[in-house]
């Protein structure tokens, strides 16, 4: 054959492979409002940057007449490309080919691109849309999952890993996304569960739809398995692109520096947003936007455990991770879910050299039998662990309440915060004035002629003396009491000063956080 004939042969082979599961399967996929796998990759990556790997891989199954079947690319598309010029490795399961089921070679393609991502030290993006294990391939498909989980774990904290759930992801398959750093879901398209509605019905007699059991909303609001929720695939891709712009390529780098932009101080005017009465709610996201570049803030897990807010913003062009109690929901208390949410985010930022900015305003931990029995001790401990362990620059701003254990947990000086600032409205105390007065002056209150009057008087006395930042300032637990409007300036300065921070932890194989 001449070169021309060889190229024609190549083109023919490519055409066949690129057809995926054929027109019928593609039509079915599209009728569900879903893109097909290759379209998804192209929609996410910069134009003309996708370079495919392993287009000609074929499955290796022999049993059940599988040897007579041709599955283009074995149901998964892998390759490399860029997002805003940032290199990434990517794979997308192709539901039109054998339901995106995972067989031996399908898994091999995925693990190959994962190994490549690790070697090149670039982020990995996995688009999941699969019916699960390819049953015909038996234990080989289980082996495939295991190999993926192992690599997810090895890559954890080395390269950012992003999972996008654009279809079913059930049974063992859910554990690959669960091991990665960020999980994206889309309404009515994503479905994740360990055991599906069918099994639940037979075993427990409880009827539930897939959407109610493991739909996008469920994972964004109730389980916390998802980090980003979108209404459409297109919105989801925009979210991924935005996230990628905030995080570094790997754990040896810093995130890319952008051009510094001032916040929109008209829309986000601290003095207008912020009620000084510690019992009044406000939206802490506005406070974050009042100090972040361009008032931009990418909130993570926006719908889950809303009593704490986490997410990325930039200060003077550099990415920071914000952690802030949210007085708007549940008064901003720490509880099982919010502790879990904050702790994992702190560890992500620490692993990827992203400084932490903590905004403190909480009355303490959420009281309740359900909380105690759900293990708030164990989960709450994660926050202490994560902050104490973190060696990235840690800056804390105490805006109002910082009572008791909540004060300690929210990146206090004692957990080795590098900078701790307090606003004049800060109340740093062992507990709220009401609770403290009731305990300290129990006897006086009980014996008073008018106990309620005495109680109010004692509360006031306690408040005047202790509900301020100056007691803590007198011990050097906070570095400075600052005006709210000076906050951004102090943050910028602190970040500048801490550029060379190089704190070392004691040698260990790894710590044992209270998982």
């Amino acid at each position, binding site marked *: 054959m001449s070169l021309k004939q060889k190229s024609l042969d190549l083109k023919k082979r490519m055409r066949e492979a690129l057809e995926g599961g054929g027109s019928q399967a593609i039509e079915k996929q599209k009728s569900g409002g879903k893109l097909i796998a290759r379209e998804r990759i192209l929609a996410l990556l910069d134009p003309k940057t996708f370079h495919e790997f392993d287009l000609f891989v074929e499955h290796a199954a022999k049993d059940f007449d599988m040897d007579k079947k041709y599955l283009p690319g074995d149901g998964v598309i892998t390759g490399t490309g860029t997002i805003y010029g940032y290199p990434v490795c990517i794979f997308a399961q192709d539901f039109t080919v054998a339901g995106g089921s995972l067989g031996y070679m399908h898994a091999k393609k995925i693990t190959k691109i994962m190994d490549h991502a690790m070697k090149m030290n670039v982020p990995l993006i996995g688009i999941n849309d699969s019916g699960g294990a390819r049953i015909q391939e038996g234990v080989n498909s289980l082996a495939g999952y295991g190999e993926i989980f192992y690599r997810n774990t090895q890559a954890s904290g080395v390269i950012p890993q992003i999972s996008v759930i654009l279809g079913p992801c059930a049974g063992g398959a859910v554990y690959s996304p669960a091991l990665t750093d960020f999980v994206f879901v889309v309404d009515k398209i994503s479905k994740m569960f360990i055991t599906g509605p069918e099994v639940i019905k*037979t*075993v*427990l*007699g*409880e009827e539930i739809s897939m959407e109610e059991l493991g739909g996008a909303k469920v994972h964004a*609001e*109730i389980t916390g398995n998802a980090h980003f929720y979108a209404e459409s695939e297109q919105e989801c891709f925009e979210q991924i692109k935005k996230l990628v712009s905030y995080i570094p390529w790997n754990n040896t780098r810093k995130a890319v520096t952008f051009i510094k932009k001032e916040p929109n101080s008209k829309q986000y005017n601290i003095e207008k947003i912020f009620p000084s009465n*510690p*019992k*009044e*709610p406000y939206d802490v996201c506005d406070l974050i936007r009042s100090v972040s570049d361009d008032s931009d803030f990418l909130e993570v897990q926006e719908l889950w*455990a*809303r*009593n704490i807010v986490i997410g990325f913003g930039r200060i003077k062009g550099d990415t920071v991770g914000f952690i802030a109690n949210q*007085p*708007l*929901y*549940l*008064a*901003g*208390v720490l509880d099982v*879910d919010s502790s879990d949410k904050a702790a994992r985010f702190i560890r992500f930022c620490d692993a990827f050299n992203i400084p932490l900015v903590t905004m403190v305003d909480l*009355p*303490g*931990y*959420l*009281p*309740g*039998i*359900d909380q105690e*029995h759900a293990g708030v001790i164990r989960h709450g401990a994660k926050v202490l662990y994560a902050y104490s362990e973190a060696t990235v620059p840690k800056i804390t701003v105490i805006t109002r309440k910082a*009572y*008791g254990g909540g004060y300690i947990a929210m990146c206090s000086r004692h957990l080795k915060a590098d900078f701790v600032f307090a606003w004049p409205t800060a109340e740093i105390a062992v*507990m*709220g*004035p*009401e*609770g*403290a007065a*009731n305990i300290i002056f129990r006897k006086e209150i009980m014996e008073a002629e008018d106990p309620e009057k005495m109680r109010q008087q004692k509360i006031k006395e306690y408040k005047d003396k202790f509900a301020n930042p100056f007691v803590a300032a007198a011990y050097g637990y906070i570095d400075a009491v600052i005006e709210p409007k000076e906050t951004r300036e102090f943050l910028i300065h602190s970040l500048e000063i801490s550029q060379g921070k190089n704190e070392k932890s004691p040698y260990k194989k790894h710590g044992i956080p209270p998982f």
Partner: protein
Amino acid sequence: MARKKEEVNPYSSINVDDAYYKTLLIKKYENRKKWAKVDNSIIKAIIPGTISKIFINVGDEVKAGQKLLILEAMKMYNQILSPADGKISAIHVSEGNRVTKDQVLLEIDCAENVIDDN
């Protein structure tokens, strides 16, 4: 953006250390299960299934750990044991009955109904 302003006050409050804080609640918090003390006097079906055998009659004295009945479900025979010493005061099912989850099967009069902290 001609969205109507909600007329009802959406705020609620939660109490931490004797102080009330004005705030919004979240779905999961509102839907949390209220805790109930363990009630040993009512035996419910743990899963849907069929009562294949009943070992006791009304009025029988039973000991904690004694076999009360067999609930067949998912091709398995589940022994239902007495959670406490007591006397069978009512039996609501008979052999061969199909039962749903949480259906009350029988009742026991038991002295140590609830475990007390004190």
